[in-house]
């Protein structure tokens, strides 16, 4: 499968002792990026691609919020509005948040944490990126040829009868699904087969546990989405009738298929965020992580439970009462491993020496927002309240608190944490704090008002609304533009850091995981030596060195493989 020697990436054996050679300067020109097998470059390409998608989805969101400034028509027709919320959802989910953390930070950091030279299957990794690009192009093409107005869930029978470009959009999502499967498969193999000396399963950094759990869901759930979307395409093009009552099919079967993937998919989104959190909380509290094994197992528990709760999306779709009760109970059980994580993070912070650097600000935001998002999930998981709250803005707000307040915030924390490692430059801490503050305030203004609206009965996805909701909608819209301002400031200082930022030391934060043992940015081959892993949270093994403005290991030999010096 992966043994050809003539591929790019193998052709030049780099002199691993040259200190000025890093993965960014190793090989020039656009083709050396597009056809690279280097996990770091693939991670950076994903970062650019995924942040572009985030920008696109964000523009749709701002347009939506602007339309909702007044009841009735503000800036667009109802049909355009339907397309806008569908595109916002589809782009954000399939192009941004599902691949988000694993494909960018996962790709970049995972092999480094393992002290490895690359992921196990680098060609598959590149293929996965190209599949993402292809899927993204098909999805964007669908926007050009008429967009989609079904909502991102593509519910039948509407999705099989509407004349908008559902076929192209679902084909795009189908291809993106394979990109996600291959990324997950690659990470599973890499974690199983490429752990360094000394890294047993329970000495892995918790980031790897989170990514591993995510990968399990990616490979087990995504194929089901694939066949579901394929059936939808077959329905539209051939008329196979599986979901069409007129031909003997059952439209609710579509919902079962769709949510069998898409509920686990929200854990594809949140588990990597939790993975980042475990790193941030420990490092910026200056303390060993509390309850390591509980956090590790809770990731696996969430991955497994995620497959058993899809029915809670169909409480009002005519499921039997018994099924509703079972799904409701199982839904509550997801709260247990989630809470285990949160309490362990809090316990890690307890009596720690907390540094309020930008990554930690995002970690704290995560704790606050994810707690609200998670607890409001219980309102929706219990049957009686869900009947009232179903398909209202309460659901929208819950979803955004978990996905934006959870995943995106942790993603931003992760970007700020690993940015110096990725690009070898420090960003402006002060601007970062301002931006984190604006994002936190803007987010809460946008979505907390939606909780209130929703509990008062404002239905989601509506173009028009009653006069009494105007104040809430306007507050929400103002919040969304504050949020956007925060992001523009972030784009500004991050881009500025690339050219004008201070040079980053190898270990600016004092993390004890292996990625901090190599230079910033890492050499093409990642490490000068074969590595050996110790306790990933033994922060006492490091000391601050003011001369390089970074942390160094008290005993550098402790992370070198035992045979190092003689071998390779």
């Amino acid at each position: 499968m992966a043994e050809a020697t003539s591929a790019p990436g193998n052709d030049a054996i780099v002199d691993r002792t040259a200190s000025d050679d890093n993965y960014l300067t190793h090989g020039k020109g656009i083709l050396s990026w597009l056809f690279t097998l280097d996990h770091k470059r693939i991670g950076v390409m994903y970062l650019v691609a995924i942040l572009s998608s985030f920008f696109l989805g964000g523009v749709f969101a701002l347009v939506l919020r602007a339309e909702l400034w007044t009841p009735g028509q503000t800036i667009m027709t109802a049909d355009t509005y339907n397309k806008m919320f569908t595109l916002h959802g589809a782009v954000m989910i399939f192009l941004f948040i599902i691949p988000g953390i694993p494909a960018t930070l996962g790709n970049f950091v995972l092999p480094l944490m393992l002290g490895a030279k690359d992921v196990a299957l680098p060609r598959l990794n590149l293929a996965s990126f190209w599949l993402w690009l292809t899927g993204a192009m098909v999805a964007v093409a669908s926007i050009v040829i008429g967009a989609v107005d079904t909502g991102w869930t593509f519910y039948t029978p509407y999705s099989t009868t509407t004349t908008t470009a559902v076929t192209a959009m679902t084909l795009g999502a189908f291809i993106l699904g394979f990109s996600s499967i291959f990324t997950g498969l690659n990470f599973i193999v890499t974690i199983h087969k490429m752990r360094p000396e000394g890294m047993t399963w329970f000495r892995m950094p918790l980031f790897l546990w989170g990514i591993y759990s995510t990968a399990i869901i990616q490979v087990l759930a995504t194929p089901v989405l694939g066949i579901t979307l394929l059936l939808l395409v077959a329905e539209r093009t051939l008329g196979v009738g599986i979901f069409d009552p007129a031909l003997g099919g059952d439209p609710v079967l579509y919902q079962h298929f769709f949510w069998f993937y898409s509920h686990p998919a929200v854990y594809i989104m949140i588990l990597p965020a939790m993975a980042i959190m475990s790193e941030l909380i420990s490092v910026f509290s200056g303390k060993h992580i509390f309850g390591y094994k509980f956090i590790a197992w809770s990731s696996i528990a969430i991955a497994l439970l995620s497959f058993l709760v899809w029915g809670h999306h169909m409480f009002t779709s005519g499921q039997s009462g018994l099924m509703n009760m079972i799904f409701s109970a199982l839904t509550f059980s997801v709260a247990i491993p989630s809470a285990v994580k949160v309490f362990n993070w809090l316990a890690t912070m307890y009596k720690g020496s907390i540094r309020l650097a930008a990554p930690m600000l995002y970690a704290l935001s995560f704790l606050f927002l994810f707690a609200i998002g998670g607890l409001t999930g219980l309102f929706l998981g219990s049957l009686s309240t869900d009947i009232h709250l179903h398909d209202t803005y309460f659901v929208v707000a819950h979803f955004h608190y978990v996905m934006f307040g959870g995943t995106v915030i942790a993603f931003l924390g992760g970007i700020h944490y690993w940015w110096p490692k990725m690009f070898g430059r420090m960003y402006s801490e002060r601007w970062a704090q301002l931006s984190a503050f604006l994002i936190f305030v803007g987010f809460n203004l946008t979505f907390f008002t939606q909780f209130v609206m929703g509990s008062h009965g404002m239905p989601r996805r509506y173009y028009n609304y009653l006069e009494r909701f105007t104040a809430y909608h306007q507050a929400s819209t103002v919040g969304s533009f504050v949020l956007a301002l925060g992001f523009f400031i972030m784009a500004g200082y991050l881009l500025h850091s690339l050219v004008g930022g201070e040079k980053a030391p190898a270990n600016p934060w004092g993390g004890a995981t292996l990625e901090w043992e190599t230079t910033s940015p890492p050499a093409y081959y990642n490490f000068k030596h074969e590595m050996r892993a110790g306790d990933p949270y033994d922060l006492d093994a490091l000391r601050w060195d003011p001369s390089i403005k970074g942390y160094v290991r008290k005993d550098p030999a402790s992370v070198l493989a035992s045979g190092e010096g003689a071998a390779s």
Partner: protein
Amino acid sequence: MADQAHAQRDGLAVDHHFENADQQYQSAKLGMWVFLGTEILFFGGLFVAYSVYRANHPEIFIFGHHFLDKNLGALNTVILICSSLTAAWAVRAAQLRQIGMLKLMILLTILCALGFMGVKSVEYNGKWKHGLLWAGQYDPHLEDHGETSHDIIGEEIAAEADAEIVTEEMVVEASPALPAADPDRSTIAPAAEGPAGLAVEDPAAAEDTGVEVEPANAQTYFSIYFLLTGLHGIHVLGGIGAFIWLLLCARRGDFDSGHFTRVDMVALYWHLVDLIWIYLFLLLYLI
């Protein structure tokens, strides 16, 4: 450099990021198994659709399977099992560096796969001729079944009575008290209601006339039949492509050094394709 020297010593090409050939082989193998897991889930969606509709409407499946030729299905099963044997033999040959035998076995596997697709196209062609297609194109012309019944209808059915398979128009004329209940017919009554969609139940089908009347929504069987066998067929075509690639690799001498990972991986994939067909044969032909 050291990696490459090590690789040459073993006579195997090891990628730069692996420590040794074994780690590389084990990684490829685990990756392949995980991929096969995703394939099972991919087909799993269709198997679930099959289970749901069969549980709700067993009569559709009883009716529909008479139109599949068990003999051709069995022939294809034998062909695929043979190809799995030759694929496994090819792996063995690659491990023992018997390049001639390897090429022969790959060639035989390709021939079997082509044979499978040939038989499948005969079957598809028969369905096409009689309009027994997926729901959107379902337009059965059973009136000419007197001439072509042996092509399309299971033999035991054709041997029984001409009146057994009748079109809906004929039901209207036929007396509801025709004798000779079909032993194959399910004794389970069709679901009175439930997640069967909103289509109106055909009262003629619900009534137990003792005749192999076409039940309502019989087209669903053919939708599922074409989806399952079609998706499987695409996998067979993919397998043929993979084996042709292996043949080219073998001609180029890639396996002369005893490097058998690729052969092993493709064979694993092929066994899964074979296994899925065995399930399809049981679930669609031998109800």
